[in-house]
């Protein structure tokens, strides 16, 4: 089995706030990330697909097709957006790195038909990232 990884970058803003908690609890739990006007990150997304190389083309998948899927599903939806207000899939959820990675997995998984989605890794910064796998795959 071969793993192939494609990387993209997008920039977006977010804030962490749970309306079920008091303002004091929000500040205690989320710290500076609770700032009401939000803040932003340069996110780096690494998408890894697993599969066997096609004997004719030598490819696990057509990278152009993966690039188009990432453009459609991730870039158009999240790049230069305020994640809390503009991304329907994140409505009602705190847009942490964990939740964004999970939403990206759910968006990509049914669209990838050549090979199988193996891992979604989303970096919020060089020092913080979330990995999403199929349950039981690791």
């Amino acid at each position, binding site marked *: 089995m071969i793993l192939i990884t494609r990387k993209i970058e997008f920039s977006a803003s977010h804030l*962490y706030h*749970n309306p*079920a*908690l008091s303002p004091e609890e929000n500040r205690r*739990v*989320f*710290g500076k990330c609770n700032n009401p006007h939000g803040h932003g990150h340069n996110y780096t997304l690494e998408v890894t697909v697993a599969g066997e190389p096609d004997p004719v083309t030598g490819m696990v998948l057509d990278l152009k097709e993966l690039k188009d899927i990432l453009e459609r599903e991730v870039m158009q939806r999240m790049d230069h957006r305020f994640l809390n207000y503009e991304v329907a899939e994140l409505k009602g*959820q*705190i*847009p*942490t*790195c*964990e*939740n964004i*990675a*999970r939403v990206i*997995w*759910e968006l990509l998984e049914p669209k990838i038909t050549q090979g199988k989605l193996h891992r979604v*890794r989303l970096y919020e910064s*060089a*020092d*913080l*990232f*979330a*990995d*999403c*796998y*199929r*349950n*039981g*795959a*690791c």
Partner: protein
Amino acid sequence: MAVKIELGRRYRFAASHRLHTKKLSEEENTRIFGKCANPYGHGHNYVLEISVSGDIDPATGMIANLADLDSFVEHEVIEVFDCRSLNEDVAAFRQTVPTTENLCIEIFERLKSFPKAKLERVRVQETANNSFEYAGK
């Protein structure tokens, strides 16, 4: 849940070490460890990457609060190793050669009791070209 989520976090510390064991002769130490057996030791800027897993708390969107994770790692690892001589200042390396393999194991053992999430693995980068991973036995 159909997916498994892990949270990864990166930390940095700088420390010195010497790869040398009294169980071997000086010639054997030099042959096996090369420049790393230099008697006065040398140092690295280590990068520690840890991954923890667990359910996402719907109230916070988090597997674990980063402030809790950071303070645990600060106390268990950074305060113990940063700006130290691994051989001289860390009890675990009095008898054990402080290779980065052994450093991974020591860090995993120190972090595995993190109460808010399950430690999956630690990866220690000794230089940009060398890294080591340990996920427990």
